[in-house]
């Protein structure tokens, strides 16, 4: 199979996020980036499919801080080829990113009859929409999102899509197709740092030159801001033993102790 995984860097939300002075973007000074979590699952799903059916896994990313590490990590995990598009992801809305990636896949030979494009289902900054359906629309390919399982056979994929309440449904789709991956069938694999270092020494990241988008952002963003402190929780403070005492009182108030 010809498997492509689209990797995107997002701010690590464990860190404090601040809005820059213009009120339009995040203050990049202290931002730490990490791979968008569903994209990590998409990579794992691609590697599982390759192990079962053979083929190649190509990881593709726009330029972003720390993205080289992520691309080399993907190669160390079993990816065959890494491609970086030297257009900065920062400042691009999802629609513009989808446009750039659609141009990448429009190159002759990129999409073969056994191709699956595997972006993550959604990213935490997808204000303009998700990459997977936007890419599918641009390339006129079938799309299913919130995917948590993929089986392939005879030019088709059988996909498990999540609904609510633990309900899932099976869909069948002819390849080539775009699947927005939510969870891989197994937790993303761990790769030792030594292997990543080895990949950094032996492997290369290819570059694909493409035209930057005309309209980096589609939406008229008036402002970004932090949620107001109003309505926040009543904070319980003190040493663990004091906190526990106070929580027991709360639990007693709600008649569960």
């Amino acid at each position, binding site marked *: 199979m010809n498997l492509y995984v689209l990797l995107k860097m997002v701010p690590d*939300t464990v860190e404090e*996020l601040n*809005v820059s002075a213009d009120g339009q973007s995040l203050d990049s000074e202290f931002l730490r980036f990490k791979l968008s979590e569903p994209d990590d699952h998409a990579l794992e799903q691609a590697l599982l499919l390759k192990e079962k059916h053979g083929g190649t896994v190509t990881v593709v990313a726009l330029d972003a801080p720390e993205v080289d590490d992520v691309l080399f990590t993907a190669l160390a995990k079993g990816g065959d080829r890494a491609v970086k598009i030297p257009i900065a992801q920062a400042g691009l809305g999802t629609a513009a990113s989808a446009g750039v990636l659609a141009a990448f896949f429009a190159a002759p030979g990129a999409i073969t009859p056994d191709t699956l494009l595997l972006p993550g289902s*959604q990213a*935490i900054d*997808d*204000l*303009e*929409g*998700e990459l997977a*359906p*936007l890419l*599918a*629309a641009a390339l006129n*390919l*079938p*799309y*299913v999102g919130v995917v948590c399982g993929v089986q392939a056979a005879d030019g088709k994929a*059988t996909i498990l899509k*999540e609904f*609510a*309440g*633990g*309900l*899932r*449904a*099976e*869909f*069948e*789709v*002819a390849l080539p*197709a775009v699947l927005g991956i*939510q*969870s891989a069938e197994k*937790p993303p694999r761990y790769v030792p740092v030594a292997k990543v270092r080895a990949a950094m020494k032996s492997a290369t990241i290819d570059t694909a030159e493409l035209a930057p988008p005309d309209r980096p952002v589609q*939406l*008229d*963003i*008036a402002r*970004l*801001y*932090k*949620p107001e402190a109003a*309505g926040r*929780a*009543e*904070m*319980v*403070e003190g040493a*663990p*033993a004091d*906190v*526990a005492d106070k*929580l*027991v009182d709360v*639990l007693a108030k*709600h*008649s*569960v*102790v």
Partner: protein
Amino acid sequence: MANPILVLAEQVRGELADITFEMLGAGRALAIASGAPLYAALLGSEAAPLAAKLGAADKVFTVEHPHLDLAPAGTVAAALKGLVDHTQAGLVLLGCTNVSLGIGSMLAAHSGLPLVNFCRAITFQAGTLTCTSQLFGGKILSDVKLADGRGIVSVYPGAFPVDAGKHDGTPPVEKVDLAVEAPKAVFKRYVEPETGDVDITKQDVLVGVGRGIQTQDNVQLAEDLAQILGGAVCASRPVIDQGWLPLSRQVGKSGMTVKPRVYLALGISGAPEHWEGMQNAQCIIAVNTDPKAPIFDGAHYGVVGDVLELLPVLTEKIKARKAT
């Protein structure tokens, strides 16, 4: 903003989902503020009996075609585009749900209308429509302005009250004939939820654990607390994805919706997809090392601290209190 507002009714297994009424309520408020009519779009072969329940809309437009039953986003978006053209709708509301995910993006790509995702509030003031969205797992909000009130808005479940969108009256219904292409992804069968050992939707007390619990072994600390409280342990998605607890214990968008008397959120950041599953708990107690964690915006009680440190102490204290 004189163009109609069109709400995409969402159905699961022949029932209208709550999000449909939440959006109709939100749409009605906008309709009153702007003077635009409020329409509902209902797609699929079983549309007729459901249309009668959409009395909050001024009119319901149906496209009745078997291709639209459990159709993929592309097929739904194409039909919805047909209805947008037919009704001249300027604003489309749809659910930020697993069922509808991707429809808004596809409709945006085909119609040229901008999409605003992750929306929690919509206001119409002095001729300007502003959508407030939750980004970065709830850590940042954004206000987006839609020129002339034109656009597609994907609305989070739980952002608007259900009751505001429920009306007894029977709405006028127009059946629209549209050519519907065969879907490119075909529904095969449902895979029913695993029935677990415990039904977390029936518990008075839930001890919810998130990534902050750090290891599978630590889940036992939460089990101990749940046991002494006569409740059960549930979890956020990363804990389930790691295989530390079964899928039947997942709370949130893809998991269960729970309404216990007390919900302890331990090492859970409070991302919107988790929040929508437990927001109606009577009492939410959050424990998190990050004082800026979004869970504190909605919880009733908050503790900034390490759950691994607090859990054993809390369990012991409850044992002691029970013994007295």
